[in-house]
């Protein structure tokens, strides 16, 4: 006979083992690598302990890259929430069958490889791409618009990629919202806008927080989109780390940059957990 505690341990073991082996161990490796000097031919010189790599993080050059990345991630997050939240709300208003179909539609882009989707944007946005060619043919513009290889393209690509995450997170919150609360608000004389601001939004804030943190964390660490759609003109934290490991071959500094990124993510995830906890505490655990 197995006790509930034992069977719980057995059920969790594969997942925990997986995370320990492929998440915790690599993170620890990166952490330790950050405290040594780089080897002469790349790699890590484990005989030379140093904290120099962390000191280099506050070099204005890198601070600027970090702030730039944070700004792009923040703009992406705001746009993704502004697009994803109303979409999620609209989905909750549909009939149950239609809700499933609409959610599948929202997830459909994930069936195609991320790289291919990013290349597709390049086809759309370049100087002779579909958008520019179409606008010139229509006589709206005479010169192609600079749509590609700039911050605009990077943000567009990131928002496009991460809107589905916001939709899913916001939908989870909105679907659990008691419809009679919305009716009660209308019954008490509130307009649609007031109902949204005073009732719907506060009660679904945990979903918005979850979606936002997700988008921000994924955006700030992304290196494919800035590389392809930014065309080397937009340097983000992810690109910097990528370059340190694969181009500059300075693994210890790359490790230090990675630790910075991980620290930012952990702070955000913790903040989100606090928001969710508070929201559920004040509504009696039903948030």
């Amino acid at each position, binding site marked *: 006979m197995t006790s509930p505690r034992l069977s719980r341990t057995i059920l969790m073991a594969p997942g925990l083992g997986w995370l320990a082996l492929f998440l915790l161990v690599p993170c620890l490796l990166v952490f330790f690598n950050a405290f040594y000097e780089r080897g002469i031919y790349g790699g890590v010189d484990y005989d030379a302990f140093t904290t120099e790599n962390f000191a280099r993080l506050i070099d204005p050059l890198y601070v600027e890259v970090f702030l730039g990345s944070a700004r792009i991630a923040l703009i992406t997050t705001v746009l993704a929430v502004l697009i994803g939240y109303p979409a999620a709300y609209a989905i909750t208003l549909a009939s149950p069958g239609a809700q499933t179909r609409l959610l599948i539609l929202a997830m459909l882009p994930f069936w195609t490889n991320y790289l291919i989707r990013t290349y597709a944007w390049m086809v759309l946005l370049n100087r002779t791409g579909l958008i520019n060619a179409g606008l010139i043919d229509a006589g709206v513009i005479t010169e192609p618009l600079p749509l590609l290889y700039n911050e605009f393209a990077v943000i567009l690509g990131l928002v496009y990629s991460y809107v589905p995450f916001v939709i899913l997170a916001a939908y989870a919150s909105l679907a659990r919202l*008691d419809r*009679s*609360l919305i*009716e*009660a*608000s*209308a*019954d*008490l*004389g*509130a*307009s649609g806008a*007031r109902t949204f601001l*005073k*009732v719907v939004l*506060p*009660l679904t804030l945990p979903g918005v927080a979850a979606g936002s943190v997700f988008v921000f964390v994924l955006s700030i660490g992304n290196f494919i989109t800035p590389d392809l759609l930014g065309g080397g003109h937009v340097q983000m934290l992810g690109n910097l780390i990528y370059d340190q490991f694969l181009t500059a071959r300075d693994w210890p500094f790359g490790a230090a940059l990675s630790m910075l990124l991980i620290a930012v993510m952990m702070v955000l995830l913790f903040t989100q957990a606090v928001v969710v906890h508070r*929201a559920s505490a*004040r*509504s*009696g*655990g*039903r*948030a």
Partner: protein
Amino acid sequence: MSANTLLAAEKVEKRFSGVVAVDGIDLAIAENEFFALLGPSGCGKTTLLRMIAGFETPTAGHLTLDGKDITTVPPNRRPVNLMFQSYALFPHMSVEANVAYGLEAEGRPRDEIRRRVGEVLELTVLGELAKRRPHELSGGQRQRVALARALVKKPRLLLLDEPLSALDRRLREQMQLELKRMRHEVGITFVVVTHDQEEALVMADRIAVLDRGRIAQLGSPRDLYDRPENRFTARFLGQMNFLEGRLGPDGLTVDGLGLVRGVRPAGATDATSIGCAAFRPERVEIGDVATAGNSLSGTVEAIAYHGNSQSLIVRLDGAGGTRIAVSRSSTAADVRPVASGEAVRLTVPPEHVRLLAGGPDTSAAASAEADAH
């Protein structure tokens, strides 16, 4: 329609993708009335209520309030408030903020809001709980917050959807009287929707019994209880005995019993048809009491003691062995004790027997009975 009609429904109909929920209802609710819509689940009472509140638009017909057509007016522009069955309190707001919500939506000055919220919290005995959140309250307290939140708006009409169904029995009985008192104090017209016939009988001035989207009967509690006009009403309110037979000009002919005399509802046609005699357990007397009464005989099968009363199940001789319930006060039982298995003679005065047309509609009656309990 009388001069003091507050709400009128004219041939109101509601279909949901072809299925009729409300089937052409005409209704006039007077100012200052405590009105009940009573019926089993699926009878259309909640749909009718939601149309009055503005959450559903009638497929056909009109609703007027104070003589103005409100059929398509949105809920936030109607001087009507609904107390939700689930109460629908805002979980992220205190009691005070919940109650103030409707006045803030109206854009009332802050002083007025504070004063009116204070008044209504006093009326509903919630003053000390003003700062609590809904999840920190008991069921009865939440119910009072929901009531306060609707009352503070001083609506022309307050709708209550199964207001007491979430409360335990003792609290429910207390709140029935409490609601009656508050209605009197605030002078607002109440329309309550309920499936609980006792609730409707205790609280309402008038009751509309609904059956499959139509009004089966409308009247005072006493009218409905003592003078049901059809089987549905007879069965839905309280306990009722039925004897099946054929209606004739002189009464109901029952196999093995002969003629049972009684009263036909006003306006009933005298054509011969199948029908029934309906009478209350408490109208049956044991022994040959009234010489003019309908005389029955049978065997006592079971006796149940309820404290203040006693009920017997008697299997009749004739009428295919139909079982009827007999109820009498405990004091009467002391005077004339009856034992299980004993043969008894019963008398039912004709003035307390309703002769109703139609055969037993088992499906509707059975579901009505299931919902009533």
